[in-house]
């Protein structure tokens, strides 16, 4: 069984079938892109994996263990992190505090110990801070560390969200349109970072993205969704030539 295995996943909202019998397989260590026109069901698929939506049918396996129907916080505990299409950060908190939030699943200190701020809490906080600083260095967020998120440009917020997901030390990272709202320079950086996340941090990535150029550059394999169905799956060169994909994107 592969790293992430989605079998026959369907979800409907009222009469609308957002996903229909979707099969998706991810190998460990790959960057897998999910593309498709607006409303194709890409974000719905993300929400099913991370437990925000409950699927109508189908099963999801992560590292050979079923995660179908687990609540989101348990999915996170298994090592699946995600970012959101429109950032979901705490606007009044600093960049650093937002990033530290990602360390929640790595916390081993009890509630009472945190209320008393015992030595173990102190150690945990320092450990979390160190990891957060490593990721801040990695994503070059040093200049923004103490800035409240509300004051930041959108591109930086996307980076903060990426950092928050990375400090979770996940095994699988779900990125929902990471380049949206970024300028050209930030997009180019993002391509390098995705490669570094894959190579250095050894994190498998599932990516929803509209910037086709970027998708072609970073992904090992691409799956194309249209009207909730998988219409093609394969390496970038193959997808580029696929007549069904060209039809879905450009029309007949």
């Amino acid at each position: 069984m592969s790293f992430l295995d989605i079998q026959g996943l369907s979800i409907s909202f009222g009469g609308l079938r957002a996903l229909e019998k979707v099969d998706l397989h991810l190998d460990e260590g790959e960057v897998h892109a999910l593309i498709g026109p607006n409303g194709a069901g890409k974000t719905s698929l993300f929400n099913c994996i991370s437990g925000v939506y409950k699927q109508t049918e189908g099963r999801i396996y992560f590292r050979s263990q079923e995660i179908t129907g687990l609540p989101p916080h348990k999915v996170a505990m298994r090592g699946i992190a995600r970012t959101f299409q429109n950032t979901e950060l705490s606007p009044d908190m600093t960049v650093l505090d937002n990033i530290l939030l990602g360390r929640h699943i790595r916390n081993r200190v009890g509630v009472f110990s945190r209320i008393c701020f015992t030595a173990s809490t102190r150690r945990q906080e320092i450990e979390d801070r160190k990891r957060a600083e490593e990721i801040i260095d990695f994503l070059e967020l040093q200049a923004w560390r103490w800035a409240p998120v509300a004051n930041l440009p959108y591109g930086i917020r996307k980076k903060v969200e990426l950092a928050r997901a990375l400090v979770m030390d996940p095994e699988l990272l779900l990125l929902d349109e990471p380049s949206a709202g970024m300028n050209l320079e930030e997009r180019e950086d993002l391509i390098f970072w995705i490669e570094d996340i894959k190579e250095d941090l050894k994190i498998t990535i599932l990516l929803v993205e509209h910037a086709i150029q970027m998708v072609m550059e970073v992904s090992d394999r691409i799956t194309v969704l249209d009207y909730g169905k998988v219409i093609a799956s394969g390496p970038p060169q193959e997808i580029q030539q696929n007549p069904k994909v060209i039809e879905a994107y450009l029309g007949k």
Partner: protein
Amino acid sequence: MDIKTNYIDDIKIFEETSKLIWFLFFMVFLLFVPLFAGEYMVYMVSLTAIYVIVALGLNLLSGYAGQISLGHAAFMAIGAYSSSYLTVKLGLPFWFALPASGVITGIVGILLGIAALRLSGFYLAIATMAFAFIVDEVILNWVSVTNGANGIKLPGPSIGPLALKTDTQVYYLIIAITLIMIWAAKNITRSSLGRAFALIRDSETAAETMGVNLFKYKTIAFCISAFYAGIAGSLFAHFLKFISPSNFSLMDSIGFIIMILVGGIGTIPGSVFGAIFITFLPEGIRFLKDIFPFFVVETGLQGLVYGLILLVFIILEPTGLYGRWLIIKRYWENFPLK
């Protein structure tokens, strides 16, 4: 400007030396209050300190975790009546009754938290208000424990065999406990617990996908907040030595919300500032009355001023007194630069 050389500096209680100096200054002031101020002043400061505890608890729940409560006077009542039952009826000592009433109230907080788990905003406000009405009815009708509308008399606080007789002694006890509660609140907000609360407030979806168990953490927030109110209630009961249902009305609950809004929502010093401001407000109005007897005559003035202050703060200064204080402080730190 302090220069930080390691990460511990960022998680200290007083991140800046200036804060520590202000704090010490304030402590010295509190220490000497009974020496230079009259009995009435000692009474007022004690009362303020008790309200600081409630405001802290409410701020952790509403300001940090984003769960509004119109039931904090009821939590306080539960703490007060638990304490009275434990000391008067069961004859248990005060040092045991104080934390015990906090725990009892905390458990009630957990139950309310579980019941209100899926509610937010208006619905949560109504639910907590309904809870307060229920508590009120229970107090009025459970005469064997609460003595109904007639109220109940209590002994003053004691520590072991040492009974605290004078108001000054009780004053020091209340201040000490308030300090412990401030310390605990600060610990919550500087640890991952406070960050989890803040993310629940700002985005439940994000909190869940970051691994925050909403059920657990919302319940914890309610429990801690109720515990604070319970401790305050117990202190309140033994401080006044008499409690009746009229001490814990809906207006008091609203008063607590005004405290954190005026002081600064989502901040620890805000709870303190707000409690001081609101408790001393009637004094201020009385003071104005003495100076301008012709303009300030109506007795209903207090409610009007309450409402006016709330309006002004919500419209002009949503970060509260503490937010304003920070702005002024930053101005002088950077003076004459902008």
